[in-house]
């Protein structure tokens, strides 16, 4: 999930023709990577097939979880090959690292990792089709051009559709893809056009597309009960009572191994319908072993954090200049504490997986963002060979990072083997809410100093985060030493304390950033107001005249790109030029993550009773020079913004006696349509390679909201979710 860790990688994918009939078949051998086949002849995947009937089949290698890659990645291939988009079919690849390398949905990386490679695949196919046509007409390939789905020879007026050329093209030698000239963006016919998702017809007619819809012959249904206290073992369960229920085929204990990420202890019930399995589960009356984790409670976490904030930090992660001296010499200093809670991914499709174990082979149908690690985990936990396991990648009803973990896959495989029948495991909503890998809670104690001109001369953040007893931040609970405004303030100190808390955590859409931005951009806003400055001007000054700071692809931060989006959002939102009513206000924030630069203005109106109406959001984003699919791109930005607002306004996972309190959407509030503001999206194109949009638009939303609430009410929100009671008049 590291930002840009791999964008610079120049993978030498060798594009070759795949032997075999049925038209032109183009594949890759992945070379030069440890995970790929090294030996010749390499195994080839089949990325593109041109059928004699003119249909073009494109394989989509990564999981589709709603981020749109099953449409956007084939669009890139189709563009360069000049295919007719109406005659392109997309096929979902199975999980196979030898054929496809890493197949995952995470880090907003699908587009940046594949932009060049996919264009070259398309260009190779086009070159071969042109060569085949030129040969049959006895003309120079350079005298031919293409229209969607056809090769044209203008001089003679001849033309041929791709289907009729496919077989001949398949007999030619592929050119070196690196030598091919790629299209100029001005000539694009597919990329850059509003393109509905390829699965849209199936979605709107309710076709079975999702993991939960998988049906196998003879399939049974399973529910799996785990301890309310994470990882606690089973003391006893009334298996016979469950077995006596109608339709129940098996009820058994699972001891578990490998921790929460693999197979947790629990009780499985398998029946001929899921409802019957659930009814039987109610009879289990399971008792759980005592566990130290039952001491955990959210109240206790707050006490620990407060204690930590009062004491010296565990360690200093970064110290530039001299913060103490700068604070002393400052003409104004302010301090503030920010806090945010654990939150759940709450994918609308609860975790589920279907598995069949037959003749020593395991076959799995998984709505996962990360199939290969799941396969390895199943192999390890069940003692199978990875090559005896096939994972079908199934469309998932939302990812958001939750489906990077694969424990539901291990559970389904285990239960299917025990049951001796194909099994579809479905979690209840409560299972899902109470057995997550949550966005970690966190606390920030800030000190800031301003000089006489109102510039930030000192910044200190004591970051308090959950983690291990030996002081390691938990999964997705760390903050980078280069987190803004590091490198932009002369005297900067980042202190870290780690609280020993074992609530399972993991990446949630824009991990780290989704919470840190709330604290950092909130405190910057406080400093702006303390300086008596306009919050946009103050931020522009903070970005100064810096250009690229750090190393691109690693810790690089291009301040010029951020200034660009900040100015743009101020312009389109009417910032500073719009008259606000009483208790109405605009707030601004920006954040850089996943290679994307985003700034937002949120406008709110706060009622006398404290109820918040978000009236509108303006977004400016810079993700490089090309938006691949404007439809999906706008969707991702709007969805991310509303996701961020939804979390800030209503979401909180709390613990009592070691168990998660919230269970369903009555106690865990997701935004509904009547709370959703219009979100006006503007892309600032810059001369940079295109990057992804699954995540980077989220982080500025919560702080821009809270800064708007301050502008409307004069009350500073320093704790999420926002408590409207604090905003009531009187």
């Amino acid at each position, binding site marked *: 999930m590291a930002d840009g860790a791999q964008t610079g990688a120049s993978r030498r994918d060798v594009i070759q023709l795949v032997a075999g009939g049925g038209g032109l078949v183009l594949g890759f051998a992945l070379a030069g990577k440890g995970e790929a086949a090294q030996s010749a002849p390499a195994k080839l995947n089949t990325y593109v097939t041109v059928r004699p009937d003119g249909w073009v089949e494109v394989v989509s290698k990564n999981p589709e979880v709603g981020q749109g890659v099953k449409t956007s990645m084939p669009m890139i291939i189709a563009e360069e090959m000049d295919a007719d988009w109406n005659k392109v079919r997309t096929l979902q690849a199975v999980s196979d690292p030898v054929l496809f390398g890493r197949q995952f949905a995470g880090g907003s990386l699908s587009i940046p990792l594949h932009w060049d490679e996919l264009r070259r695949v398309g260009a190779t196919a086009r070159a071969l089709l042109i060569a085949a046509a030129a040969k049959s007409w006895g003309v120079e390939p350079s005298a031919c051009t293409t229209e969607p789905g056809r090769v044209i020879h203008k001089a003679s007026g001849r033309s041929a559709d791709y289907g009729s050329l496919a077989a001949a093209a398949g007999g030619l030698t592929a050119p070196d893809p690196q030598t091919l000239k790629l299209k100029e963006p001005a000539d694009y016919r597919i990329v850059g056009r509003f393109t509905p998702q390829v699965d*849209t017809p199936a*979605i709107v007619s309710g076709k079975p597309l999702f993991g*939960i819809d998988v049906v196998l012959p003879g399939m049974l249904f399973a529910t799996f009960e785990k301890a309310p206290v994470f990882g606690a073992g089973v003391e006893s369960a009334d298996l016979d009572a469950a077995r006596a229920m109608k339709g129940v085929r098996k009820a058994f204990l699972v001891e578990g191994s490998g921790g929460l990420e693999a197979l947790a202890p629990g009780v499985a019930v398998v029946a001929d319908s899921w*409802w019957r399995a659930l009814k039987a589960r109610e009879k289990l009356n399971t008792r759980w072993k005592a566990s130290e984790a039952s001491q955990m409670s959210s109240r206790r976490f707050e006490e620990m954090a407060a204690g930590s904030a009062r004491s010296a930090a565990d360690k200093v992660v970064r110290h530039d200049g001299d913060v103490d001296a700068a604070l002393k010499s400052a003409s104004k200093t302010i301090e503030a504490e920010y806090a945010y809670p654990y939150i759940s991914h709450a994918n609308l*499709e609860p975790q589920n997986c279907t598995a069949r174990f037959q003749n020593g082979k395991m076959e799995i149908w998984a709505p996962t963002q990360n199939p290969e690690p799941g396969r390895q985990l199943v192999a390890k936990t069940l003692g199978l060979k990875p090559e005896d396991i096939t994972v079908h990648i199934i469309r998932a009803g939302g990812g958001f990072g939750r489906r990077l973990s694969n424990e539901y896959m291990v559970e389904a495989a285990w239960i299917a083997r025990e049951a001796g029948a194909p099994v579809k495991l*479905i979690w209840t909503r409560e299972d899902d809410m109470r057995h997550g890998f949550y966005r970690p809670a966190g606390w920030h104690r800030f000190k800031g100093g301003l000089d006489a001109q109102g510039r930030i001369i000192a910044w200190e953040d004591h970051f308090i985060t959950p983690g291990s007893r030996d002081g390691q931040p938990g999964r997705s609970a760390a903050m980078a030493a280069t987190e803004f405004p590091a490198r932009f303030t002369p005297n900067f100190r980042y202190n870290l304390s780690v609280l020993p808390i074992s609530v399972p955590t993991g990446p949630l859409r824009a991990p780290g950033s989704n919470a840190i931005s709330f604290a950092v951009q909130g405190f910057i806003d406080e400093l702006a107001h303390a300086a008596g400055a306009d919050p946009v001007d103050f931020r522009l000054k903070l970005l100064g005249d810096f250009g690229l700071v750090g190393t691109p692809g690693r810790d690089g931060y291009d301040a010029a790109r951020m200034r660009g989006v900040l100015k743009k959002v101020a312009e389109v939102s009417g910032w500073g030029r719009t008259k606000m009513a009483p208790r109405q206000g605009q707030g601004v924030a920006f954040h850089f993550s996943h290679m994307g630069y985003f700034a937002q203005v949120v406008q709110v109106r706060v009622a006398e009773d404290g109820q918040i109406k978000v009236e509108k959001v303006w977004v400016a984003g810079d993700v490089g020079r090309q938006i691949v699919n404007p439809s999906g791109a706008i969707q991702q930005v709007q*969805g991310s913004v509303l996701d961020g607002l939804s979390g800030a306004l209503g979401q909180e996972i709390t613990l009592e006696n070691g168990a998660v309190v919230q269970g369903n959407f009555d106690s865990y509030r*997701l935004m*509904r*349509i009547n709370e959703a503001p219009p979100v006006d999206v503007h892309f600032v194109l810059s001369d940079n390679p295109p990057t992804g949009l699954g995540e980077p638009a989220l982080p500025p939303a919560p702080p821009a909201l809270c800064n708007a609430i301050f502008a409307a009410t004069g009350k500073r929100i320093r704790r999420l979710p926002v408590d409207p009671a604090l905003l009531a008049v009187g």
Partner: protein
Amino acid sequence: MAYTLSVNGRTRRVDVEPDTPLLWVLRDTLGILGPKFGCGIAQCGACTVHIDGAPVRSCALPIDAVGKGRVTTIEAIGDNEVGARVQKAWSELDVAQCGYCQPGQIMSATALLAANPRPNAEEIDAAMAGNICRCATYIRIRAAVRRASGQPEEA
């Protein structure tokens, strides 16, 4: 218990316990997989079907309470003129992200437009507020309902 149901214009016989929610009869017994499971407590709307044209959360409706009601699911909503218009608007505006909530959204939108052919902004929000979209496609849902009702997309 044996029950006789009318589902998508066909008579179906099932043998299930009386407390079995309609959703699971549709999905597991009849293999009608369009209605989705999201919460099981009538909070999210993913399981929305029509009974005699009215939107119902099938996860919270025991089969015993269905009676003679004619059940329509997303699979057959395109046979209905309003339903077909809603589906078309949903496709043209590319409403879905993950798509999981959308069968329920389309069922709620179709019921709304059947009862109120030109709803205003508040009426759209009120009628659709029972359907959660975790991907937050709400802006396009609003636009698609307006398009399906022949109104300009921007309110």
